[in-house]
């Protein structure tokens, strides 16, 4: 009834190719954005910011990054954790070496450093593909984590081998360090999420994005019609690692504050982000958000139900979480390889003809 494109006439090319062609979607998008930026900071409390909102936003950035590489360009990567670690350690080194730099610059610079590392580890993708490449990216994962663990320069030779985020403020409001308010953390992450999603959306529907998708669908055919595989693959690695680096930096500076690299950025993190984009939907920005929200929410919900309501011990709930995640991955791959995003697409189609489907 409400969800119609009828009567919404496009009179220019810009209007015709906009992200949300249906008016209802546009309004909903802006309302959501206003709610997230203006209303939610007043409502958010420590528990929800820590348990759901902040990790959700940070994982959404990582998922968008990996989705560009895996969903749009078809290069499966198991090195996400390692690249997030690069972002974290880059931001740590920048924060301690240049104390006068502000956090936004630091986070973006960490992204660029990660992009450079990503391109380096993306070079083999020109020779190998498919799961051969997936295993090659494991080399990045294990090597990077080992390096941050062993080379003292990266953690400023601290005795514990940990890195701790110093306090930094924007406009006099703390965004890192132990005295940060929940709403400041949340808003700082939201800023990056909105920027990243906007950039990613516009990249993927432009010339670069089309090249990525051509490479994904069939690389040899893409090469024949004039796509340069070197540029397409490496740019995908660069952009993807840039986003993943930003998310890794935020995960360390804003969310955790102190990081032990093997624990936080291990192989399980790589799989977690990969699962987010499988469940959410490969090759979809919306899917990245949906997958991140789902997999961040699932353990919180299970803990609420299992531990608080049913009174089970926490280890059983943790194992149950594994079972459910694994089963869901298989279920989605069997039933709907395009994930939650495809469900949403089907719902939209149904809504458009509702309530007269014939």
């Amino acid at each position, binding site marked *: 009834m409400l969800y119609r494109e009828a009567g919404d006439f496009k009179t220019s090319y810009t209007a015709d190719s906009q992200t949300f062609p249906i008016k209802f979607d546009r309004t909903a998008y802006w309302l959501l954005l206003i709610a997230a930026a203006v209303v939610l900071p007043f409502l958010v409390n420590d528990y929800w910011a820590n348990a759901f909102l902040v990790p959700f936003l940070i994982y959404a950035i990582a998922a968008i990054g990996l989705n560009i590489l895996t969903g749009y360009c078809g290069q*499966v990567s198991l090195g996400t954790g390692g690249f997030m670690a690069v972002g974290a350690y880059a931001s740590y080194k920048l924060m301690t070496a240049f104390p006068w730099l502000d956090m936004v610059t630091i986070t973006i610079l960490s992204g660029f450093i990660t992009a450079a590392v990503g391109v380096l580890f993306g070079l083999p993708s020109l020779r190998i593909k498919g799961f051969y490449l997936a295993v090659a990216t*494991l080399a990045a994962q294990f090597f990077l984590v080992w390096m941050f663990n062993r080379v003292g320069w990266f953690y400023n030779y601290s005795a514990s081998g940990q890195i701790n985020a110093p306090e930094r403020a924007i406009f006099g409001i703390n965004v890192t360090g132990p005295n940060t308010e929940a709403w400041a953390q949340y808003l700082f992450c939201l800023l990056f999420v909105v920027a990243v999603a906007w950039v990613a959306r516009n990249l993927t529907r432009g010339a670069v994005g089309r090249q990525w998708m051509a490479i994904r669908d069939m690389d040899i055919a893409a090469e024949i019609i004039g796509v340069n595989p070197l540029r397409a693959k490496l740019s995908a690695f660069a952009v993807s690692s840039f986003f993943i680096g930003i998310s890794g930096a935020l995960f360390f500076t804003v969310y955790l504050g102190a990081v032990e690299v093997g624990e936080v950025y291990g192989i399980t993190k790589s799989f977690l982000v990969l699962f987010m984009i499988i469940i959410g939907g490969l090759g979809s920005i919306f899917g990245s958000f949906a997958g991140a929200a789902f997999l961040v929410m699932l353990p919180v919900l299970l803990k609420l139900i299992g531990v608080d309501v*049913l009174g089970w011990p926490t280890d*059983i709930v943790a194992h149950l*979480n594994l079972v459910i995640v694994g089963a869901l991955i*298989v279920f989605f791959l069997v039933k709907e*390889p395009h994930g939650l995003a495809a469900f949403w697409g089907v719902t939209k189609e149904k809504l458009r003809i509702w309530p007269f489907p014939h």
Partner: protein
Amino acid sequence: MPDQLLFGMEVALNGLMAGVMYSLVALGFVLIFKASGIFNYAQGVMALFAAMTLVGIQNGQVPFAHLINATFGTSIHHFGWQVPALLAILLTVVVMAAFAWAVNRFVFRHLVNQEPIILFMATIGLAYFLEGVADLMWGAEIKKLDVGLPQGINTLIDETTFNAFGYGFFIDNLDIVATIIAGLLVAGLVIFSQYTKQGRALRAVADDHQAALSVGISLNYIWVLVWSIAGFVALVAGIMWGTKSGVQFSLSLIALKALPVLMLGGFTSIPGAIVGGLIIGVGEKLFEFLIGAPFLGGATENWFAYVLALIFLVFRPQGLFGEKIIERV
């Protein structure tokens, strides 16, 4: 002979033994990959699951005891009997065969003709599922596995080498047994695939699914068979690793180590899996001994195998013994 050289030789020998273990896991990968084109990431977790099931059956543990206790407020843990090792192994093989059937019935039958990378991701999901089930079923604590394999230093080698070089080599009995069993396993597999009817059907399926289907070979049967064999290989690997370092989660991480082994050996070659395993085993131990520990701060074993495979792949994408990759548009 100088001490350093002798010590290096001992390290290399131990690496060879560790390599046999990697080969055992890699073997399971190759079997499934050849028959169905599925790159089975869950192989390592299958080894963990098999070893846990074996221990559980041996000790008469009640499956899902924790879950049952938590739900119904009971407190049951053991049936109170001990099952002899051989019978327990047989029962575990049955469990692994049932698992093979279930995996094919509920997962891979629905994913026929999907892209390899989709299948790969499905096996990652399967690995998580199986790990969770294993923990729920038998509990997550570290378990001791003992099926009566010899363990400890081999005194014969120690004495012989001491008399010859004045320095006794430390070789674990278990490693020697593992090597022998791995050899027998490979020989058994070769005989099975060359000289039996099922083996020939298996090779036909590996060669060309459709042609095999058209001459009346049941794909479902062959896939269940090959997953069962892979389950059996996983059980053998699980027993070896479990006896060596206890049954625990890190067992499933050896699956990750088997990936570079496959990269080196090629995904379709059984001898490749063996040779690749040995190269990785010796390579990482020697690298750690010569370069890692003195110059790089140690623990290079974590990444050496992957980096070696990565460098290797850039020059020879199909591995040492793999078939040449031909692509058509």
